[in-house]
């Protein structure tokens, strides 16, 4: 991950400041459950999970993986124009999503299907954008979950501004757990290079805004490896802006949950922003139109398969008798049911009505646009007789 040239011959020794960097997450990686399914302990972030909680997290991951698989298949069958897969990132998203309280607000990218799931969004709603029937058909304030944002990094500034709004609303640092709120801002490793994201860090630090910057470092920005964006571990970026950065094993749902929960609480308490780097891997293509064989090795993908976020929790559950056969069988049935609903629901999604677009451009449609709409309506009507 890090580059030999980083050692300066003067000034602070970066290796000393940050500790050594390691290709596999390094010692700074916060972990509670190993790839082998061993529960390990952490001095700062340990948490007890009940059997129910563990099953819940497992269930979430299994179902969002199914959602992802179904959507991918729907794209192959021409029902979606494109799909941005989350394969491999289930733990990062469910860990983060379950750490939220209802009053928190989330700014996703275009890949946060797992977080959307945690916010209670009907997964069918996620398909509209990718099918091409809408740009997201939910009211963000119904779920405290913003629409997907496609321009890389833009939403991190919105998140910061939203958090500044929370400060002004007096819902930060009051000590009332049902009142205090925070913002969770998602972005990718590639996004960390955008000016907007770095400006978001600056504004959040300057105003001590209650925002958690949650970066899923899935090692790739389309075909570009993380090394192109940063030559030191990404979470360290935050330190230079004056707020803490942490690297968590993003394939470990327990650690991701624990770390995000702590960071959100810190924000709600009025202690300002935190950067959480969820160290994970994009197991699939960037999107269904991408061909990763052009730029990465199968061996790397195989290596990461061993760290599968679902498999490790499954091993842990089974080994510790935390889920009987019925549990797993029921879950499979539930996943099948979800798949069925998605397939049917997707195909049934109606195309939008062209004339609607004119009514939604503005809160108050100007007369000239209304005239354009009417002209187009007349034009369309002129064909009705013809056909």
């Amino acid at each position, binding site marked *: 991950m890090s580059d030999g040239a980083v050692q300066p011959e003067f000034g602070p020794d970066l290796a000393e400041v940050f500790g050594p960097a390691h290709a596999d997450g390094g010692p700074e990686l916060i972990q509670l459950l190993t790839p082998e399914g061993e529960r390990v302990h952490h001095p700062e972030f340990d948490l007890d999970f009940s059997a129910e909680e563990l099953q819940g997290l497992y269930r979430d991951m299994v179902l969002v993986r199914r959602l992802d698989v179904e959507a991918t298949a729907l794209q192959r069958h021409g029902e979606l124009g494109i799909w941005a897969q989350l394969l491999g990132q289930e733990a990062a998203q469910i860990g983060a999503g379950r750490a939220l309280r209802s009053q928190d607000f989330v700014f996703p990218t275009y890949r946060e299907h797992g977080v959307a799931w945690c916010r209670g969004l009907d997964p069918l709603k996620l398909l509209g954008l990718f099918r091409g029937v809408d740009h997201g058909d939910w009211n963000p304030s119904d779920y405290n979950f913003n629409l997907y944002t496609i321009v890389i990094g*833009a939403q991190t*500034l919105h998140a910061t*501004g939203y958090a500044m709004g929370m400060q002004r609303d007096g819902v930060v640092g009051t000590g009332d757990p049902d009142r205090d709120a925070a913002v969770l801002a998602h972005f990718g490793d590639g996004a960390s290079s955008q000016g*907007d994201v770095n*400006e*978001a860090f600056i504004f959040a630090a300057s105003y001590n805004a209650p925002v958690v910057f949650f970066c899923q470092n899935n090692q790739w920005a389309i075909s570009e490896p993380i090394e192109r964006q940063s030559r030191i571990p990404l979470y360290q970026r935050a330190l230079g802006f004056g707020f803490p950065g942490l690297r968590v094993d993003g394939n470990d749902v327990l650690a991701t949950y624990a770390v995000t929960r702590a960071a959100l609480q810190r924000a709600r308490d009025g202690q300002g922003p935190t950067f959480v780097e969820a160290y994970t891997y994009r197991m699939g293509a960037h999107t269904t139109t991408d061909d990763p064989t052009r730029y990465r090795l199968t061996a790397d993908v195989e290596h990461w398969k061993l760290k599968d976020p679902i498999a490790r929790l499954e091993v842990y559950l089974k080994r510790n008798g935390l889920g009987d056969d019925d549990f797993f069988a029921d879950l499979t049935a539930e996943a099948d049911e979800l798949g069925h609903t998605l397939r049917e629901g997707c195909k049934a999604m109606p195309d939008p009505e062209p004339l609607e677009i004119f009514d939604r*451009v503005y*809160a108050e449609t*100007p007369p000239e646009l209304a005239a354009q709409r009417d002209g187009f309506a007349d034009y369309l009507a002129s064909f009705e007789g013809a056909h």
Partner: protein
Amino acid sequence: MVSTSSTGQKVTLAKGLNLGLRKAMEADDKVLLMGEDVGKLGGVFRITDGLQKDFGEDRVIDSPLAESGIVGTAVGMAMRGYRPVVEIQFDGFVYPAYDQIVCQVAKIHFRSKGRVKMPMVIRIPFGGGIGAVEHHSESPEAQFAHTPGLKVVACSNPVDGYWMIQQAIAHDDPVIFLEPKRQYHADKAELDETATPAPLFTSKVVRPGSDATLLAYGPTVKTCMKAAEAAAGEGRSLEVIDLRTLSPLDMGPVLDSVRRTGRAVVVHEAHVNLGMGAELASRITEECFYSLEAPVLRVGGFDTPYPASRIEEEWLPDLDRVLDAVDRSLEF
């Protein structure tokens, strides 16, 4: 926090805007101001003078030096229910925020099927003539007017400044609010705060006439008024329209006028090529094809970057260039 409500005081454009902002902040505590140096300094043009003192640092927010950051965080505040009024220090510095403006501010209402409103005002001191260095005299309006989802208005005088800023803030769509910086401290006008202003998105005939129509906005309204005055001396009657709104355009008064005069000249400081004049000329021609005695002519900044300030007055449309175009139109 005392509202300086009074009638009949004479104010500059800067003061009119300042009073209008104060009114808007008094009327709705969701209104926030944000920008570089808007706090203690009151902005480099002093438009926000005294507001931080009276409304506090939470409502008049000095920002880090990053325009994308300013507009981007304002988007988030608007989503949270605030009505941010952003100051861009000079026209030429709006471009780092361009992406946030055209891809986010302009599109969020549409993207969300109208569920998320974006009641943001982006104030931009624009235009030249103040002897400034590069990037301080730009006229970026056409770029914003070309972008669906934004509304674009320009005030030209103290009284309009006072009313239009309040109307823009109260409006639920994002408004690019252009202020002719050359006029900030130039002329005073009587302000009657009890009057009923014209609606925001309307154009106004500011001088009636019958021989040709001059279309102007922002800084060129004054230029055109002077030109009409001078022309009157030579027996020519020019109608002057202050467009006030650039997107949407309010074509009613424009078409009425051109149908009467048969001739139109559009005057703006922006480059002629693809400036507002192009759109106006196209629409006028389409609507008044048989009333036009001459093609719509355009007088504007040349299609070169804004020049060094010692020659800016030659670059900017002035009375003579306006009258020259009127002559060409009349002689066509």
